[in-house]
């Protein structure tokens, strides 16, 4: 009986194999002459070629085009119709009497975006790390429904930023769910999204809610990698909980926290969609970040001149910031790898 079953299995596997075999033979027909010409040692480049073509088409060429746009002016989209080359866009972006006061800058919206982005990233990343560690430490303990809570904290990460924005808009609007609760307890309505002093706090809170699950997972992985015997030894020595946390847990979590810090910073600088849905960058420009400036200047001018050059110049500046953060991440992660190898 077992034998018959194996025979049938083999038969179906052979049938299933036919199209693959046919495909492989067809590929072989193409690859064989290429290998003959360029040699076996150079074949990896051929296998990398499809990926490189896509990377070039969708990353390198747009990056180059963006750079050239930033060195051109006019409201035309096609290069042939634009004034080129000019540093006008960069001059305009950096034309400020005082960089500390956006009102003195020609492109005050850009500088407001810069300061809002810095404020947003500092508080969002700082609080995100704090709450991620706190949540991960709790979720690492043997609590009832641990699996359930881990899923619950991770769930918002799966949501689209637009959905996140719409959900929280519904909750935080003046006539929203949260204000209804406040009113039912006799309180006054709060303009969470339309009062400049509340709006930034609200978007930071929503952003932390939406992304914390991902970073909690990284911290949790770090916590689980800490050898339990260290805790056992500390307990035997009668070390207090606080001391264990600050002397064992936190130092050993540092590599993970560094990754969280850099990833969250990159993500924070790039934030756009959930804030755009939630507040539209308002009130005034109080929640308008750099990416929104780029989007509005280049693509959403509502009938004003679509200044592709200025938007491209601003995105180049943003690119430099992101490049710096990415290099930091690479440096630290390599550092971490080499330390592991030394161990």
């Amino acid at each position, binding site marked *: 009986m077992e034998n018959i079953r194996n025979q049938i299995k083999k038969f179906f596997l052979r049938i299933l194999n036919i199209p693959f075999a046919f495909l492989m033979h067809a590929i072989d027909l193409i690859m064989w002459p290429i290998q003959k010409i360029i040699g076996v040692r150079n074949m990896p480049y051929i296998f990398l070629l499809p990926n490189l073509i896509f990377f070039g088409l969708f990353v390198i060429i747009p990056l180059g085009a963006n750079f050239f746009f930033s060195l051109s*002016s*006019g*409201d*035309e*989209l*096609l290069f042939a119709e634009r*004034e080129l080359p000019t540093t006008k866009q960069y001059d305009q972006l950096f034309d400020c009497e005082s960089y500390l006061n956006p*009102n003195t800058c*020609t492109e*005050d*919206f850009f500088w*407001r975006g810069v300061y809002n982005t810095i404020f947003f990233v500092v508080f969002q990343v700082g609080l995100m790390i704090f709450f991620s560690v706190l949540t991960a430490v709790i979720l690492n303990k043997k609590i009832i429904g641990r699996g359930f809570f881990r899923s619950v904290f991770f769930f918002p990460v799966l949501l689209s930023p637009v959905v996140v924005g719409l959900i929280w808009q519904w909750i935080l609007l*003046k006539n929203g769910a949260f204000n209804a609760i406040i009113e039912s307890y006799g309180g006054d309505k709060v*303009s969470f*999204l*339309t*009062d*400049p002093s509340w709006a930034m706090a609200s978007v930071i809170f929503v952003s932390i809610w939406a992304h914390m699950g991902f970073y909690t997972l990284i911290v949790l992985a770090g916590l689980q990698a800490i050898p339990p015997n260290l805790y056992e030894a500390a307990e035997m020595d009668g070390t207090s909980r606080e001391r264990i946390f600050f002397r064992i847990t936190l130092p050993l979590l540092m590599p993970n926290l560094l990754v969280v810090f850099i990833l969250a910073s990159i993500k924070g600088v790039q934030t756009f969609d959930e804030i755009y849905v939630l*507040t*539209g*960058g*308002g*009130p*005034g*420009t*109080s*929640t*308008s970040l750099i990416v*929104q400036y780029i989007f*509005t200047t280049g*693509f*959403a*001018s*509502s*009938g*004003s*001149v*679509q*200044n592709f050059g*200025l938007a491209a110049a601003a995105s180049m500046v943003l690119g430099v910031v992101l490049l710096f953060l990415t290099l930091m991440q690479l440096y630290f992660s390599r550092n971490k790898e080499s330390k592991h190898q030394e161990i």
Partner: protein
Amino acid sequence: MNIKFIFKAISVALISLSLTLISAVSFAATDVRIMWYGDGDKENVPIAAQIDEFNAANPDINVILDIVPYDAIMNTLPIQLAAGEGPDIARVTDLGGLNKYYADITPYVADPSYYEKSFGPFLNWYRKSGDTTSIHGFHSTMTVTGPYVNKTLFEQAGVDLLGPGATWEEWAAVSIEVAEKTGTPIPMAWDRSGHRVSGPAISMGAKYFDSNGDPKLVDDGLKAMTQMLYDWHQAGTMSKDLWGSVSGSKYHAPNDWWNAAEVVFMMSGSWQIGRFANEVGDDFDWWAVPAPCGPAACTGMPGGNALLAFNANPAVGKVMDYLSSKEQLSSFIGQVLAIPGHLDLQVDYQTDDPNAKHALNTFAGAVPTIDQVAFDLQAHVDNRIMFNAIISRLGQAIVGEMTMEEAWERMDEDVEKQLKEKYGG
């Protein structure tokens, strides 16, 4: 069967296949793509029905109606056009701003004089400077900006509605009075739009252009109106929740507050009639009132949307002829409850709503009172640049990011900067 026979058979098969394909291509219907934004089903259903009817009667043309959000018309369409893409026809509100992309359909319409007779003054809004003959499309609906009041709240408060000639200050005062007496949270709400601000600003004496006809945004008239709006926001006459809820020049309308009867006086325009008729229903009585006055005029802004062609060919001409015909326009306008852009159109409005009927009469009656500056501004190719500068800077001043003095300075700088980018210099 020899090899020659096989070759012959294959050749015959290939020739037959080619002929079939060629004939299929020759007789395939010509596609005409329309990018359309509508104010909900109220506008989308009638236009879709008209397109279906056209397609059924013209098998050689296949009209494809792409219903898109208004933002797509304002932000996506210009980029598509700049990239050499875009639809054959689109429903547009930035009438002059896109004029470099419009196609002249004069050779392809059945009777060019019909367009001149029926849409004469509006055709110049689409044309480039110096062009007096091209036909690019037609006005789908005309609009006039102006205020609405919640009549029920006035009645409950025992306050009389003001008549023609009442000033903005007087309207603000009675709106506050009604709000206080009825416990309504928002005395006054305006669409967040530079276009909406411009009619009242012209009433206060704003000229928008210098003696050479070039844009010159900030003057005493504009300062007076924007200062008034700023003061109303600080005093609570207008809620910061509406204009403060977005940034830049983003449009935002207070319809949700209005529909919930939380607003006494709403500054918007004639395009809201059909929407109010549907959404407010019997909840309360709403009336359109004449444009309040300033020292210079009592005017709203004209406007509207037009179906404009970006490709010129016989199929596009035929579609335009069909949609601009008296019969189709009359039917469309009658269903959507709008003011016609056609100069000689009898419309049988399909509504029993007395509020809607009253509003239609009020706005239609306001057309002759529109100030010439308002018409010139609406016809100007760069009017959006001015509208956007007003609303983005005023919005910033209202939430405390700058003073009104700084906002006025910035408005002029924004206009100058944008015009330099557009025209060089």
